[in-house]
């Protein structure tokens, strides 16, 4: 999130698209409701009439997987009606940048951008024109046909209302109403907000879905101000934290790109990862990359090794490979793994195409399942269709503590790092994850010390001074030690300018670094995650603060917990003032210049220089401005509508290119496996299906299905189908039906509802159905329970929705496309 939950109250229009916060982020509706009480308009766009839609002033349906078409139409509407916030667009985006004349848009290049070979783009033409000094050429009048603004206009001129309606199935008058309502937030005094979640990310065009909206937000001047921005409602309470701390393969903590094996030295790595710019006034914050990488290496391997030595120890990614979820399980299925740690995860239910995942789990020699309860993963070998006698995998269950049984922090969607205390001791043999991890670490380290191995030093030299061994030989991790290590220390006495006082000061060895502005590239500081530097300082644990002061009156609550970066509550807030430093909207200004004290007051200022300095405020971009034209992504600098890999239409009405040209096709020979089937436009699977969540359950339900009160409220798998489809197929409300894709099938109770309506897609009636994904066979009444098995107090019905989902993902993130795929729904058991 650029902003935070409390900030929703300042929105004039809120667009809920790709999410259902009423159901899945109930607390967020406290602030949405507040906004509505102040007169804001709530717009909901969703294939299904959701709880959020029920509260919205305006609801528009769309077919799953057509969001870019829908939003592209909005960009065209904004352009055609000149509703963009010109001053903002001109000064704070790359609208005026002149693009390489050789660059081609999909409209003039058979649906793809210039440079495509195979499924990869050569991005040579996705570049800017520069002058002799290397400075990007610009046209502040935004008239040059090669300027970003004109290219954007040209690109989306193809997204006319008629074609958009035929693709999305949204009636034209609804499109117009949404466009009109949302674009009313243009200009200095109004704020429009977008709340999205997995409804946007879980697509083969997931990243581009969000990009499209970001473009709209920039055009309307909706970034950096209260009540605006782009809000990712996270699917799990600490997904923000786990991403910040690099749960994903392609980044190290703090979004430092993981080194590839081709980058032999730290210098090469820094060189490659540190962006350069010739723009004279741009701050280019990432120029500090070497400070963050050096501090990270110090946190990993300590001071008794050179930075280069530490870099050498750091594991690298093989060139050209990815280690994403889909790829990992594909490799596992192909027998390329020996063992597997399933830690706080339930891939047998959460993994796309779960049948493949369940088969894959049988191909490893051992698996360690760290969880609170038994789950579909730990017991995969005795699941439906499995023959335990034929499965070699040895499974170890390590019970772990729940979030209330250990101390630590979580980082919420609004980037707040919030400290939590332990309420009760974990039951039985359960341990906090950190203790389990430590125990494994020390055992593995001993083995490496004894037996050696490839790059053994990566493990043997790792710093692990986060706790103590007790008398019984158990290691007890001190989460405060970890939190401090994440923040970082001065490793030697250092005289530096204190950013707080602007005075020189000696920072003592062993003290905590007060701000990432003081991190050094010479190895004199450590920081496990530069973004979190300033979260735990000599002043104490910032995340544990519970101050309720609100000096701006904007609900920023700067003394409540701590928000990265540097306790900034609204990122890009430097864009909330005009180039002369005056707030666009003085009534809702997150920062204001204090002429007497000569400093910004309010939120922690982001990127902005002193008034009149001319510094562009989007300092995380090398050129200092936000990117309407975004050449960094795998699938194009502008979002283009492509159909989901599995879709009900023969043709993409937008171009001859049907699906995203850059995705990996596991279904193709020699790529994936025989289980990776795709059935697009296949009469056997005529209905569009999407997965979603209910308020009562969490993720795969491992935590919630065992809770009787929650299971009682939502006791099992259902499929929501329209009245029309039910009539056509003769389904009665409440009857059990079979939902089937080319990859699997499951039983579900039919909820026949007017909240789904058939779509008119280019003259054809297309039905869409929807299923929740929280269920699994482990807590059902019909499975076999061994004498030692815990039985749930309240049984749930049905297995995982992911038995049906396709093994295909976004080319940038590899997030699987579980929000748009094709199924059939038949009477129970009918083939």
């Amino acid at each position, binding site marked *: 999130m650029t902003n935070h939950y409390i900030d929703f109250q300042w929105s004039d229009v809120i667009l809920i698209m790709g999410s259902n916060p009423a159901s899945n982020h109930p607390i967020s509706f406290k602030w949405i409701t507040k906004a509505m009480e102040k007169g804001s308009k709530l717009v909901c766009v969703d294939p299904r009439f959701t709880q959020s839609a029920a509260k919205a002033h305006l609801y528009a349906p769309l077919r799953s997987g057509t969001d870019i078409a829908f939003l592209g139409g909005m960009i065209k509407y904004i352009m055609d009606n000149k509703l963009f916030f010109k001053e903002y667009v001109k000064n704070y985006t790359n609208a005026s940048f002149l693009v390489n004349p050789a660059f081609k848009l999909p409209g003039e290049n058979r649906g793809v951008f210039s440079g495509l070979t195979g499924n990869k783009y050569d991005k040579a033409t996705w570049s800017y024109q520069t002058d002799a000094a290397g400075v990007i050429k610009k046209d502040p009048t935004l008239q040059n046909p090669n300027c970003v603004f004109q290219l954007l206009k040209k690109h989306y001129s193809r997204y006319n209302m008629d074609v958009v309606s035929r693709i999305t199935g949204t009636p034209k008058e609804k499109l117009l109403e949404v466009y009109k309502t949302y674009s009313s937030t243009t200009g200095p005094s109004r704020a429009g907000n977008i709340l999205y979640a997995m409804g946007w990310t879980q697509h083969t065009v997931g990243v581009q879905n969000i990009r499209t909206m970001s473009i709209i937000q920039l055009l309307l001047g909706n970034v950096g101000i209260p009540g605006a921005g782009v809000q990712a409602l996270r699917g799990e309470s600490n997904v923000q934290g786990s991403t910040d701390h690099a749960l994903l393969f392609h980044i190290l903590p703090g979004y430092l790109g993981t080194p590839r094996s081709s980058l032999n030295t730290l210098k090469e790595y820094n060189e490659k990862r540190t962006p350069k710019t010739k723009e004279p006034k741009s701050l280019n914050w990432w120029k500090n990359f070497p400070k963050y990488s050096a501090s990270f290496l110090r946190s990993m391997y300590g001071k008794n090794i050179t930075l280069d030595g530490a870099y050498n120890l750091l594991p690298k990614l093989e060139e050209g490979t990815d280690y994403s979820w889909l790829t990992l399980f594909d490799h596992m299925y192909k027998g390329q793994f020996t063992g597997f740690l399933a830690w706080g995860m339930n891939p047998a239910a959460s993994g796309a195409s779960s049948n493949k995942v369940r088969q894959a789990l049988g191909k490893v020699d051992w698996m360690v399942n760290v969880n609170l309860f038994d789950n579909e993963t730990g017991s995969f070998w005795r699941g439906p269709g499995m023959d335990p006698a034929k499965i070699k995998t040895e499974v170890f269950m390590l019970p772990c503590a729940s979030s209330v049984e250990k101390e630590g922090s979580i980082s919420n969607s609004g980037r707040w790092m919030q400290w939590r205390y332990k309420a009760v001791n974990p039951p039985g043999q359960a341990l906090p994850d950190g203790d389990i991890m430590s125990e494994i670490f020390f055992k593995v380290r001993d083995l490496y010390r004894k037996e050696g191995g490839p790059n053994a030093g990566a493990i043997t030299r790792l710093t692990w001074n986060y706790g103590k061994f007790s008398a019984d030989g158990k290691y007890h991790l001190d989460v405060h030690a970890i939190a401090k290590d994440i923040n970082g220390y001065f490793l030697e006495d250092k005289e530096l300018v204190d950013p707080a006082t602007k005075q020189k000061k000696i920072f003592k060895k062993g003290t905590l670094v007060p701000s990432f502005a003081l991190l050094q590239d010479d190895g004199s500081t450590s920081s496990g995650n530069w973004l979190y530097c300033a979260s735990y300082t000599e002043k104490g644990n910032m995340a544990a603060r519970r101050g309720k002061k609100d000096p701006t009156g904007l609900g920023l609550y700067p003394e409540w917990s701590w928000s990265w970066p540097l306790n900034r509550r609204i990122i890009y807030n430097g864009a909330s003032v005009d180039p002369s430093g005056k707030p666009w909207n003085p009534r809702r200004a997150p920062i204001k210049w204090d002429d007497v004290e000569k400093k910004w007051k309010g939120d922690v200022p982001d990127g902005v220089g002193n008034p009149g300095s001319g510094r562009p405020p989007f300092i995380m971009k090398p050129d200092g401005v936000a990117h309407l034209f975004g050449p960094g992504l795998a699938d194009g600098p502008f979002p283009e509508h492509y159909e989901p890999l599995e879709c009900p239409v023969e043709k993409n009405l937008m171009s001859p290119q049907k699906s995203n040209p850059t995705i990996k096709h596991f279904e193709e020979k020699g790529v994936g496996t025989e289980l990776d089937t795709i059935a697009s436009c296949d009469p056997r699977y005529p209905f569009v299906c999407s997965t979603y969540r209910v308020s009562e359950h969490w993720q795969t339900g491992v935590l919630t299905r065992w809770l009787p009160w929650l299971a009682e409220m939502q006791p099992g798998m259902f499929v929501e189908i329209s009245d029309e489809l039910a009539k056509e197929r003769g389904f009665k409300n409440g009857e059990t039906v079979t939902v089937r894709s080319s990859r699997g099938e499951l039983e579900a109770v039919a909820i*026949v509802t007017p909240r789904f309506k058939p779509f008119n897609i280019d003259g054809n009636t297309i039905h869409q159905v929807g299923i929740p994904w929280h269920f699994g066979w482990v807590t059902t009444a019909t499975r076999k329970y061994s004498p030692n098995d815990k039985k749930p107090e309240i049984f749930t019905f049905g297995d995982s929705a992911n038995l049906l989902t396709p093994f295909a993902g976004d080319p940038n993130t590899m997030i699987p496309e579980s929000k748009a795929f094709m199924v059939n729904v038949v009477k129970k058991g009918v083939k």
Partner: protein
Amino acid sequence: MSENIKLFDTSRCTGCRGCQLACKQWNNLPAKQTVNWGSYQNPPTLQSNTYLIMRFQEKADANSVKWFFRHEACMHCTDAACVKACPTGALYYSEFKTVGKNIEKCIGCKDCVAACPFEVPKYDSGANKVLKCDMCESRIANKLEPACVKACPTGALKWGEKETMLKIANERVKELGGDAHVYGPQYVGGTHLAYILQEKDAVYAGLKIDPKVPLSVIAWKDWLKPLSLIAGGGVVVGSLLHYILHGPKRPDADVGQDNPAEGGK
């Protein structure tokens, strides 16, 4: 003690069921096996183990669909049929004017189950008790809002002084316009759970239209109960008078035990 009521605003409710769960938690109510019956609403009705349910209801016409979420629990009538019907005082008017329950006193007679115009009290055959919401008396007695109100994220549930709540309700109704209206204060002496409804009463499934203390309860408790004493007492007095004024019917003196043959003359 000021009189508080719970106000439920349908327009603010998102159907998250935080209230339903909080109720179970505070009252430590067990779960019972359910099945999906084609609705999100579960358990389908109030039960002895479920004092509060969220009702989910759809209303569709050709062009639009609406989805209603309604909080259903004890209405806490000022003139409560259940209290009237309860033979033991297990149900009573609390000092907060809500309808409290004293489980110890409940004899499981189910009189209240039949009496309640809102069909709220539910009989638990296992415990042989009738159970229902007591507006979290243990909380409100300690100046806390009921658990359901505490859990509500959107302010759809509020707890406060009656006049204030009704003022808020009336203002909200004005804001909402259309068929919006307040439901509750005009019935059974005023309920302590009031609704702000956006639609007409008849639209809501399960909502009682013009609820009253049932005539059967009035006939039973207000008429027949006193009548039984009057009738019984009347007879006793009448008999006494009869004995004194008319005298008993004694066998005739001339009929001696010795002359059976003469009998019948």
